[in-house]
Every structure is written in C-alpha cells, then in structure tokens.
C-alpha cells in the first residue's frame, strides 16, 4: 500500500488525517485568536498587523491555500467516516444505552457542521468583505500608509447584537468541538494512555474554556462599549483640536 492508500482508504489512516488536519487548524486558531486580541490595543496595532499580513502577497495566498486544503480534508474525511459508520449498522437497535460517551463526543458532526456554516459566513464577512455584510472603512497608519481600518470594521460588525451573538455561539460550538477533538486527536495518533488520559481530558476542557472566553471577550467588550469605534469619519464626530494621534502623524510628515 502506498501512503495515499493508507491515509485515505484505511480506517486508521482516515482518522489520522482527521487528527492531523484538526491539529493544524488548532494551531491556526490559536494564532488567529492572538492576532484578534490586538483589538484591545489602539487601532494602529491591529491595522498595522492586518496590513503586514496583506503585504505577504503570494505568501498569504500560500497559507490560505494550505489552510483551505486542511479544512477540505478534515470535512471530507468527516463525511466519509460518518457515512461508513452509518453503513456499518444497517438496522439500528430499538433500545441502546449510552454507557460513557461524552455529550461533546456525540455531537461532533453537529458542532462541526455548524462551525463550517459559521466559517463560510465569517470569510464572507471579514475576508472576502462582501458589500452589505459589513462596513469596510480605510484609515492611515502613523507613518501615513493608507490601510484598511480593520479595527473599525470589527467594532462596527460586533456592535450589531445579532452578529455578535452568532460569533459567540459559533466560537462556543468550536470550543465544544475541541473539547472532545483535542483528547480524541491524541488517542487517534496513539499518544493517549492510562497514565495521562485524565490529565489530557482536563487540559482539553481547560483549553476549550479559555479559548471560548478569550474569543467571546472580543464581541462581548464591543457590545459592552469597552471597545469603541475610533475612526472619526465612521464614528461621525469631529476631531478634537488637540489630538495625540494627529499630532504624532503631523510631527512625522
């Protein structure tokens, strides 16, 4: 058997693809979260970060293509495995107890597919930036570079309570998915044993909770008014006569 047959045609191989693609995506979402938490810094910070990412050009496209491939493989294997599992018991029991499977483990498909729906919306909202999905203003950095005002785009988006709620529920489901996914991943590649399975389970729960809280803090603090629109044009207020940002800008130019 060649390596592709192992990975895409055997039960354990397909599971390994799920686990490895899951791990890659977990790595990505951690980085993504850290990037997003810059919303709590002055707008300059996240706008410059976004500008830097866009400046990667072909590099950015390579990363995007890689992540898309990862996602496609993960979802494809999820569908394939699920169909096979359904076929493995053509006639269901009339009564069957659940003995110890966790609730999260029994709702992986549901949580996964809702996350997928969210992901499509999220990409349209902030990556493709479909007209009508949000506000896409521009601003300049301190050094005068014209950039997209990502800070304002996010704050305007999350000031809509429905959008915020949708984001919070979705990251909640993603955390739920990871609650089982993380431990499961270790089992699939063979690194879970009696000796530390209980630690692994606790660490997964802790990670999922922290990941959820950190993510929910973003729309949450916009709704609570802690993070405000700071782009004068969008906020609709006139610049105060003495403003530190403009002074710094003017001093440079």
């Amino acid at each position, binding site marked *: 058997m060649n390596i592709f047959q192992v990975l895409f045609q055997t039960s354990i191989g397909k599971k390994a693809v799920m686990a490895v693609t899951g791990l890659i995506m977990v790595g990505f979402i951690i980085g993504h979260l850290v990037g997003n938490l810059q919303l709590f810094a002055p707008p300059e910070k996240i706008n410059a970060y976004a500008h830097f990412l866009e400046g990667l050009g072909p590099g950015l496209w390579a990363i995007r293509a890689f992540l898309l491939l990862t996602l496609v493989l993960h979802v494809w294997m999820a569908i394939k495995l699920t169909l096979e599992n359904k076929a493995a018991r053509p006639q*269901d029991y009339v009564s069957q107890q659940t003995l110890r499977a966790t609730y999260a483990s029994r709702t992986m498909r549901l949580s996964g597919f809702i996350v997928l729906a969210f992901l499509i919306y999220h990409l349209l909202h902030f990556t493709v930036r479909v007209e009508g999905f949000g506000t896409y203003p521009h601003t300049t950095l301190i050094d005068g570079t014209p950039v997209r005002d990502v800070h304002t785009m996010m704050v305007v988006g999350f000031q809509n309570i429905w959008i915020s709620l949708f984001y919070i529920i979705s990251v909640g489901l993603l955390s739920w998915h990871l609650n089982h996914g993380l431990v499961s991943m270790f089992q699939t590649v063979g690194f879970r044993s009696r000796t530390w399975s209980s630690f692994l389970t606790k660490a997964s729960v802790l990670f999922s909770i922290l990941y959820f809280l950190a993510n929910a803090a973003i729309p949450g603090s916009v709704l609570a008014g802690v993070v405000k629109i700071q782009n004068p044009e969008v906020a609709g207020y006139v610049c105060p006569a003495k403003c530190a940002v403009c002074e710094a800008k003017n001093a440079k130019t």
Partner: protein
Amino acid sequence: MNVTIRVWRQKNTEAEGHFEDYEAKDLNPNMSFLEMLDVVNENLTLDGKDPIAFAHDCREGICGTCSCMINGKPHGPESGVATCQTYMRSFNDGDVIVVEPFRAKAFPIIKDLVCDRASFDKIMQSGGFISIRTGSAPDANAIPVGKEVADLAMDAAACIGCGACVAACKNSSAMLFVSAKAGQLNLLPQGQPEKDARVLNMVATMDEAGFGNCTNQYECSAACPKAISEEFIAKLNRDYLTASVKSVFKPKPTTMV
C-alpha cells in the same frame, strides 16, 4: 420473581424480525440470564412453539459465545461480566426486559438472538503466526519478559472475542477486539518479528469486513465483559501508523513469497 422478556424474533438472515413478549414466571433470582431463557424455551417447546435461539457455550464467562443486547447494553446491566454470568437478581420483579441480538453489518443475524461473528475469526486468521520454536517445551525463562509488560499483555489476552465492543459501539467498530488481539502479541518479545505485518493485515481484514470507524468514545470498553482498556486502541493506532510508514519506505526483497 416474574419478568416479561421482549425478545427479537427473526427466522433467518433475510427475514424481517419483530419483538415478541414472553412471561418468565417463578424464577429463582440466582438463576443466570441464560437459565431464565432456558425456562422460557422449555415452556415454548412444551407449547409446541419455536424456542428462542440464543448463543451460549461455556456459561462461565470464558468462551465469548453468549451475546445479547439486554435493555440496550451488551451482556446486560452489570459491568465486567458476560450474559451467562448475569443473574436475575440484577433485575426487579415485574421488569420488562428488552432482548435484542448484537447488530452490525459485519455480524449478520442468523436467527433470533444469534449473530454470525465469523468476521472475528477472519481477523484472527489474518493476524497469522508467530515465529517460535515448537517441539519440546522451551526453557521457562529463556526469554525474559518484564512483569509490567507481562501483566499488560495478560490484560489484552483476557479478550474472549464476544463482540460486545462492536455491539456497544455507535459505529460498530471492532477496534477494541482487534487492539486486544494484536496488542497481546505486539507487547511480548515473541510477537516482535511479525508485529508490523500483523497490525497491517488485521486492520485490513477488519476494514474489509465492514466494521465502522472508531470515534474515540470508548463505549466498547464500558461494555466489555473483560474490561479491556481503550488504551490498547491507542496502541493499535500507534503500531498501525508506524507499520504503515515503515512499509512505505522499507526495502523489499526481490522475490516476494
């Protein structure tokens, strides 16, 4: 004590099955579940009706022949015992007990509560032999085996091949069985020469037989009458992935036997 059993009756593999209720009266609570079925069958036979077909052999929890999904759990309400060692005292007087066969595509129903678990035998056969010297008894301690390893291998070897793991699994996966059978040999020095071939072949046969894929929910080990740990599944995954990578890169002899 008296109970009502709601039993799955199915004439043969192709026939449609259905439930039928039977009264089991004046039972001794210390009868085993199978003895209760014997009583019901005796009465059915006396009435000139077809007795309920169920699988059994040793009736002491070691052969793995008895099966049955009892009230939605393989081998009944207790843990760590097979159906033959489940006693009526585990139920209450007046209970309605639902009894179904193990259900899986790879375990076709032969009749009533009896299913065909020959796919397990195929998996065992594909595991193949181990290279040891046969003939006169070898010196007992010629091959040293660490106590912990020996104990772990013994845990795996406790599998009686009953199929409860498949029956309990939402995906009808046979991973617990295969991991126990491959694991017991993979752990021991005697099992090393054929280790890679063994996992590759056993998993391939398992996949072919139409079992589902593991989703790491461990219903199997909760239902296992020998309480085999899902830890062996992790080991099987590790051994399988290692063997696969090795088999991709390993130089192969020019003439394959």
